[in-house]
């Protein structure tokens, strides 16, 4: 995906500005936009179900822009670079830890959840059946995940402590992504563009 090398904050700025502009600028009247409209047909079907045509086009275009720009963001943005950029930009290591640790803990706990479903099925638990049976099954599948994860909070705290992530440290950023002046300028420009459009639209 292009844009992979841009500074994470630039990526966020672009991905934020595009949909904002889509909201602020008056809704387009058809023409070139129809190509974009057709690509998300099923999603638009729902909109059409709920609203009349002009509203559908207005909301549909805005959402398609938003989704397209954010999907590109997710593909281009590497969490590690965002964390390093945050640390380099002076965010406290604890805040950067919260975001990064959650990002890396999700796949680990999701894999553990699937392992627990397998293990409980191997001792006779059927996740099918009536609503009541499935709610009971839900308890036998969710509780082990939560209890084992909570039990490890202490060990995670011990690990952080022994490896120096304690309040008030001056952490050395490892490999902060380069943040050239031109990108910083571009970010401010995007912000101004949004504000200007906002000003022109509503005042």
């Amino acid at each position, binding site marked *: 995906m292009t844009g992979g090398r841009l500074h994470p904050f630039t990526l966020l700025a672009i991905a934020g500005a595009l949909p904002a502009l889509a909201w602020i600028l008056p809704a387009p009247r058809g023409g070139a936009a129809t190509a974009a409209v057709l690509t998300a047909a099923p999603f638009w079907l729902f909109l059409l179900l*709920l609203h009349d045509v002009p509203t559908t086009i207005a909301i549909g275009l805005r959402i398609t822009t938003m989704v397209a720009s954010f999907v590109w963001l997710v593909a281009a943005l590497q969490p590690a670079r965002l964390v390093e950029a945050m640390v380099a930009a002076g965010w406290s290591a604890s805040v950067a830890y*919260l975001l990064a640790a*959650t990002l890396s803990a999700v796949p680990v706990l999701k894999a553990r959840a699937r392992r627990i479903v397998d293990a409980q099925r191997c001792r006779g638990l059927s*996740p099918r059946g009536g609503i009541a049976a499935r*709610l009971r099954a839900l308890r036998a599948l969710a509780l082990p995940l939560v209890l084992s994860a909570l039990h*490890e*909070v202490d060990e995670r705290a011990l690990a952080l402590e022994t490896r120096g992530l304690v309040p008030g440290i001056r952490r050395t950023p490892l490999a902060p992504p380069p943040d050239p002046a031109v990108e910083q300028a571009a970010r401010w420009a995007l912000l101004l563009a949004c504000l200007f459009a906002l000003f022109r639209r509503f005042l």
Partner: protein
Amino acid sequence: MSIRLLALIPVAAAISLALSAVVDAVALPLFLDTTGTILATALAGPTVGVATGVVTSAVNTLRNPTFWPFVVVQIIVALYAWVAARAGLFRSFRTAVPAGLGLGVIASVTSTPISYLVFGCTTTGGIALTTALGKALGLPPLGACFFGSFVSDFGDKAVTFALVTSVLHALPRRTAARFPWALRAIGAA
């Protein structure tokens, strides 16, 4: 904030996001994506709870960009859970499930304007379907949207409160005693 509570936040947030694997296994129309926020609040109070909610939304946004406006819902869930914990409503299902239903109402009242204004009420398939049903029942668009998210939020928050209650009661006494709020949340403090 102690290092233990700092380490709790990512784990609680990751629990909210990982429970989808369990929901898929039992194929119930639930999200359970506020479990971590409610649990963190019941264990360690509002600051940790709100932080968990915000981090959950932030990670959700990085993974599914259309979710960012719902950070407001997570914060409200944390504050509601704080009130519930102070009142010890996690002491049994009889008190927790109604509290969950209450949160279900508040959550859908909060998420409906967001869902309507930003997405025309088509966020997740489930909500879109129930909204369409609402419209078929002759509700105005906003009413249909509220009906859509109410039906899904109502059940979800009640089950989430029940789940957090059974977690708090399943915690070993020693672990519960070391979280500042856990005993109070289950009415044992």
